[in-house]
Structures are given as structure tokens and as C-alpha cells.
């Protein structure tokens, strides 16, 4: 206020180009406008070029008849279905292998991560060797290994390896009996759902009760018993309405039962074992990040070993584990697109492969495929962030 250079008089605002905050806002608005202009230009230019070259555009092809067969589909599909249907079939196959992979990789990862910290020399070394071998070999090679080296050397359907003449393993895949629910089997499923809901309610009620009174019931055991006993009881009462469709060898291959394709098996094995190695390291680092003092303190409070692990170590370790675990899940989903290398009918193989080639509409098909992976990744990310927020330590 006392400097000789004339400052803006009090009460008079400077012009907006002198105000850094407003200037920044203006630049950002200009940037955004330019960005949209560029995107608009790219889109219109692409459409013009495609038109000039006589290449068909638009999404009308999704209603056309596909005309090709797909070896595995979770929904009804015949060659007379539409290209839109091939998209759904591919998407569900991708989701199937991703879900199976995430489940198996998590189990393997947690087991191996804890095993690496085992005081038993042999167990720790085996887990260490597993991690070092499988996370350092490219995933594609591992898929090829399982598919070409392991599953390709299995016998033909007629010489299948069998387990009790019900489960068969051959070069065409793993054939297992399929459960067929008879009349009234639905009640067993209803009972299962009721038991699960009741268990959730019980656990929550138990937690609130413990916070209020300090008493706790063995809610875990009660829930487990309920989930097993209730459906079993209903199943028996309703007259055990379940039969098994046992696979039978006839013609070229087994008929009946459920066939798990060798392509699915190979991809599942490779994805779970590869990602499991990374998860093992994440779990180990998470557990080691909890300082020894925490364990000692909980022992001093006379908590048992199990309670120390469950109430002190794991909640703190999870804070470290969840964020990198999310990335591994996302990687696994994206890596499942390597399916096309061994012919598992996932989204990339069926939709961005065969459908793209039969229709020639590369831009539309690739855009839809990219949108699917983006959406899947964002959804998993959102879920894991929510889970992370729940697991975060509440500071009091």
C-alpha cells in the first residue's frame, strides 16, 4: 500500500487478464474448446474418408445374421443369431474367464504370500520359487505352455483319463457330470438364499452387540452351520429332487455333462498362476508392513494368535494390499484378451476377430470392444475403491 508504483485503488478489481485465476480459467476453456474441435474434426474426417472409400459405417450390422458357430456360449446362440448376440456371447465368455481367474489368483496369491513368510524353510522357499518363476515368464508363453505342452498331450476322447467313470479328461477338455434340478429343487436354492441373508444379518447384529455390551457369539460358526444345514434340510424334505447328467462316450466325443474347453482351462490356469505370483508379493509386503510392535502389543493385551491376526494384523495389512491388488485384477481382465492366441472364444476373438472380419466394420467393432474393457476396468476400480474405503482405518 505504501509502494510508489500505483497499485489498483482499493475497491476497484483488476481487469480479468491480470487476474491469474481468471486467466487460467480462460485458458482451460479455450483448451477444452480446441479439444472438442479436434475430436469433432477427427470423427467427421473419418466418416468422410470411410464414405469416400465406399466402406460401410454405422451400427446397423449388429442386427444382421452372424452365420458362424461359437464353441462356447453361456446364453442361447446359434449361427442364425445376430452379430449383436456374438458381442454378448464374447463378453460373457470374457467375464467368465476373468471371474474364474480373479477368484483363483486371489486364493493362490494369499496362500503363497502367507507361505513365503512361513517359518518353515521348505514352504517359504517353494513359495519363493513359485513367485520368481511365474512372474518372470511372459504370460503369452505361459498360456502356450499350458495349452500346447500340457493340454495338447492329453489322450483322445476314446482313451480319456477318468475319475470314477463320471469325470473325464481328454484333449477335448474336462467333462464333468451336470446337475439337473428336478421339480421342487428351486426350494433348496431359496433356502440357501435365506440362509445367506440370515447369516449376514446375524454377523452385523453380533458386531453391534459386541460394541454395545462386549459379549460376542461365535457368529462365524453359527452362520456356516446355517448355510449348510438349512438348504440340506429343505433338500431332504423336498425328496432330493436332483439327478446327475453323467457324460457318455458316443460318436466323436462325450455327450451330456458339462464340458470345460481345454482353451478355457489353459487360459484360466495361466492367468491365475501368473497373476497369483504378483498377488503373493503384494500380500507378503502388506503383512510385513505391519510393524512387529503391533503384534507384541496385542499379545500384551492377551489377544489370542487368531484374534491378533484377524483383528490387528490383517486390517492394517489390507490397507497396503488393496490398492495394488486392484491393479492386478484390472491386469487380469485385460490380459484375458490373449485368449485369441489359443482360440478361446472371448470378446476379442469372437467379436473383434470373427465379427470384425466378416463385417469389415473395424472402427465400430474396435470402439465397442475398447469401451467394454474400459467399462469393466472402471467398474472393478470403483468396487475396489469402495472396498478400500471400508477397510481403511478409522482414526479416532
Amino acid at each position, binding site marked *: 500500500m505504501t509502494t510508489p508504483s500505483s497499485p489498483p485503488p482499493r475497491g476497484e478489481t483488476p481487469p480479468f487478464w491480470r487476474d491469474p485465476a481468471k486467466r*487460467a480459467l480462460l*485458458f482451460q476453456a479455450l*483448451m477444452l474448446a*480446441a*479439444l472438442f474441435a*479436434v475430436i469433432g*474434426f*477427427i470423427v467427421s*474426417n*473419418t466418416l*468422410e*474418408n*470411410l464414405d*469416400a*472409400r*465406399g*466402406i*460401410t459405417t454405422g451400427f446397423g450390422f449388429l442386427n444382421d445374421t452372424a*452365420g*458362424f*458357430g*461359437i*464353441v462356447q456360449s453361456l446364453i442361447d446362440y*446359434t*449361427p*442364425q443369431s445376430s452379430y449383436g448376440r456374438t458381442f454378448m456371447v464374447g463378453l460373457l465368455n470374457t467375464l467368465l474367464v476373468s471371474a474364474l481367474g480373479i477368484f483363483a489368483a486371489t486364493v493362490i496369491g494369499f496362500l503363497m504370500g502367507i507361505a513365503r513368510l512361513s517359518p518353515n524353510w521348505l514352504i517359504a522357499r517353494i513359495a519363493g520359487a513359485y513367485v520368481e518363476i511365474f512372474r518372470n515368464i511372459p504370460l503369452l508363453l505361459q498360456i502356450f505352455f499350458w495349452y*500346447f505342452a500340457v493340454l*495338447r498331450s492329453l489322450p*483322445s476322447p476314446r482313451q480319456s483319463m477318468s475319475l470314477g467313470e463320471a469325470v473325464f479328461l481328454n*484333449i*477335448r477338455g474336462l467333462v464333468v457330470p451336470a446337475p439337473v434340478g428336478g421339480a421342487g429343487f428351486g426350494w433348496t436354492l431359496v433356502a440357501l438364499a435365506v440362509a445367506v441373508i440370515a447369516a449376514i444379518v446375524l454377523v452385523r447384529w453380533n458386531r453391534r452387540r459386541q460394541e454395545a455390551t462386549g459379549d460376542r457369539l461365535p457368529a462365524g460358526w453359527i452362520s456356516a452351520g446355517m448355510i449348510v444345514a438349512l438348504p440340506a434340510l429343505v433338500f431332504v424334505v423336498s425328496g432330493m429332487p436332483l439327478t446327475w447328467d453323467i457324460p457318455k462316450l458316443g*460318436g*466323436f*466325443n462325450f*455327450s451330456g455333462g458339462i464340458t470345460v474347453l*481345454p482353451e478355457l482351462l489353459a487360459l484360466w490356469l495361466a492367468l491365475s498362476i501368473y497373476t497369483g505370483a504378483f498377488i503373493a508379493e503384494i500380500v507378503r509386503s502388506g503383512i510385513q508392513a505391519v510393524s512387529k510392535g503391533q503384534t507384541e502389543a496385542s499379545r500384551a493385551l492377551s489377544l489370542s494368535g487368531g484374534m491378533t491376526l484377524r483383528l490387528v494384523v490383517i486390517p492394517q495389512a489390507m490397507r497396503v494390499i488393496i490398492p495394488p491388488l486392484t491393479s492386478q485384477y484390472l491386469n487380469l481382465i485385460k490380459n484375458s484378451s490373449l485368449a*485369441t*492366441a489359443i*482360440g478361446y*472364444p472371448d470378446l476379442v*476373438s469372437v467379436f473383434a*476377430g*470373427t465379427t*470384425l*472380419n*466378416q*463385417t*469389415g466394420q*473395424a472402427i465400430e467393432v474396435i470402439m465397442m470392444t475398447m469401451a467394454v474393457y474400459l467399462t469393466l476396468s472402471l467398474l472393478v476400480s470403483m468396487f475396489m475403491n469402495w472396498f478400500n474405503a471400508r477397510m481403511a482405518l478409522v482414526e479416532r
Partner: protein
Amino acid sequence: MLHNNKTLLCSATALMATLLATGSAQAGETMEAVKERGQVVCGVSTGLPGFSTPDDQGNWEGIDVDVCHGVAAAVFGDASKVQFVPLNAKERFTALQSGEIDVLSRNTTWTATRDTTLGLNFTGVSFYDGQGFLVKESLGIDSAKQLDGAAFCVQSGTTTELNLADYFQAHDMSFEPVVFDTSDQTVGGFEAGRCDVLTSDTSQLNALRIKLADPSGAKVLPEVISKEPLGPVVRQGDDQWFNAVKWTLFAMINAEEMGISSENADELKNSEKPGIARFMGSEGNFGQAMGLPADWAYSIVSQVGNYGEVFDRNVGAGSPLNIERGINALWTEGGIQYAPPIR
């Protein structure tokens, strides 16, 4: 802030430059680009004996390869000025659409969809084929009608995939398609027993059968379930280049009909017979409008050979495939290979 703006601006400019560079195909554009480059870039298969496959020295050979050599001979008077790009079935059309290759000569079936919706044009038929089935002798099968419920190894993105579904629907049978990206993978799956049947064009099945560890243990079933006219493909909208590729094939077929071969081309070069003189370019100049030299057809026949020679050398009696001429014989000899006259 300044730094960020700069980066964004740079990438935006680069993007725009790329997009502006890929203008639409115009007449003469491809020919000009080919001449400037000094080479024809030709898309071929990843390895199919008789059609396009590298020999033990890494030189490409086959009918499809010879079509490309023919185009190079017509344009440059030198059949060796070709660069081959191996493509699988899924990549082939995109490679041509994007301008990565000048001509696609890769046992590609001419269909309405491909000709009308992909922005591509088929220039003719270099081989008339049909889809068949290869099975192991040990299965004891001698008709496709016995294949209900069998697993089929098939290459992804081909008309084969579609014909298979059509055939089994028409005959009310079921099938399990096992789809691979390359032809080698389908053979691998068939040999290992992943599938019971290998299905593809019959000429390819003959070619693939001799690559098996035990060729005599497998046989091609008699049924031919589809029409597969195979031919070279170019981008739509560049008529000059389209004509050049189309007439390269016609020149080969005309040469066989007129009795001109790589052996007597030099003798006949100065022939006074009107038809042969027009062919050799000593009378009239039929190359000019296509941007080719007057002796374009002479270059093709003297360096690559006529259609009959190309056929025999690659897939016919002079090759291990030993495929009969059949419908691929000239129209004068009971086949359907027929080319419009050069006049």
C-alpha cells in the same frame, strides 16, 4: 501449464497430420506411389503351399505370389520388384484398406459382402475353389454326412467359418467349431486330435495334407460344400490400379489361350499375327491408359509365364500338390477360365 499446453498441441498437430495424410483413394494414386517406391507391396498368406509360401531360401512362391510378380513385371518390366507382406485372414482387409499393401493376393474368396461393403474390389479369379473336409483315415468315415457332432478346426475370419455353419444347418446336424488365427494352428489342432476334421478350401486341404507328419493317414472327403472363387483384391476408387491388376491376370490367361509361354515369348515378340502383335505391344498401345509400358503383357509372360505354366508349376502336375486343372482349365478345354480379348 505452458509445458502441458505445448505437449497437447504437439500431439494434436501430429494426429491431424496423420489424419489429413490418409485421404481417400483417387485414380492414379496407387500407381504413382508404386512407381515412386520402385516396388509393389503385395499381401500374401502366412504360408500355404502352392498359393503363397516361402521356399527354403526364403523366396516366396505360389500362384498368388506369381500374380504379384506379374503385376511387378507389368509395371516395372521386372518381376522381382515385389515386397511380400504375410497376413493372416483377420488382418488382410484392414491391411489393404489402410494402404499398407497395394494388392492383396492371398487365396481370398470373392463374396458380395467383401466386394461391396469393405471399400475393396476383386479384380478377377485366379483359382476356382470349393470348401471340403479333411479327416483321419482311422475314423473310418467316407462322407461328410457322417460328421454329425464332430469338432472342426477352422481358420478365423474366413468364408469357411460361414459355410460350415450353413452346411450343418441345412443338413440338420451339430458341430463344434474350434477356431484358430492361422492356418498352421488349425493343422496343429487337427494333428494333435483337438478336432476330428480340418475344413478349408479343397486345394488348401491338399496343400496342408502334404505338410502333415503322416500324409497318408488323412484323406479329403468327396463333398465340396461351397463355391470359393479366389482372386486378387485392390482398394475401391482407384480404377487405374484396379485395371492394371485385373489385366495382369487376363494377360496370363490370354497368353495360354494364344499359345504364348515364357519359352516362346521372345520368338513371338516380333510376330506379325495381329492378335499376338497387339498382345506384345508392337501394334497399338494398350498399356498406356493403365499407366503401363506398351510391352507390359510381354514382360508378364516372359518373366512369370502364362496361366497354365503358373498353375502347373505351383499347384498342378509340376508340383507336389498335383491338383488337376478341372474347372480351372481354359474355356476352350472344358474349364471356365476365360479372359476378355486384348484389343
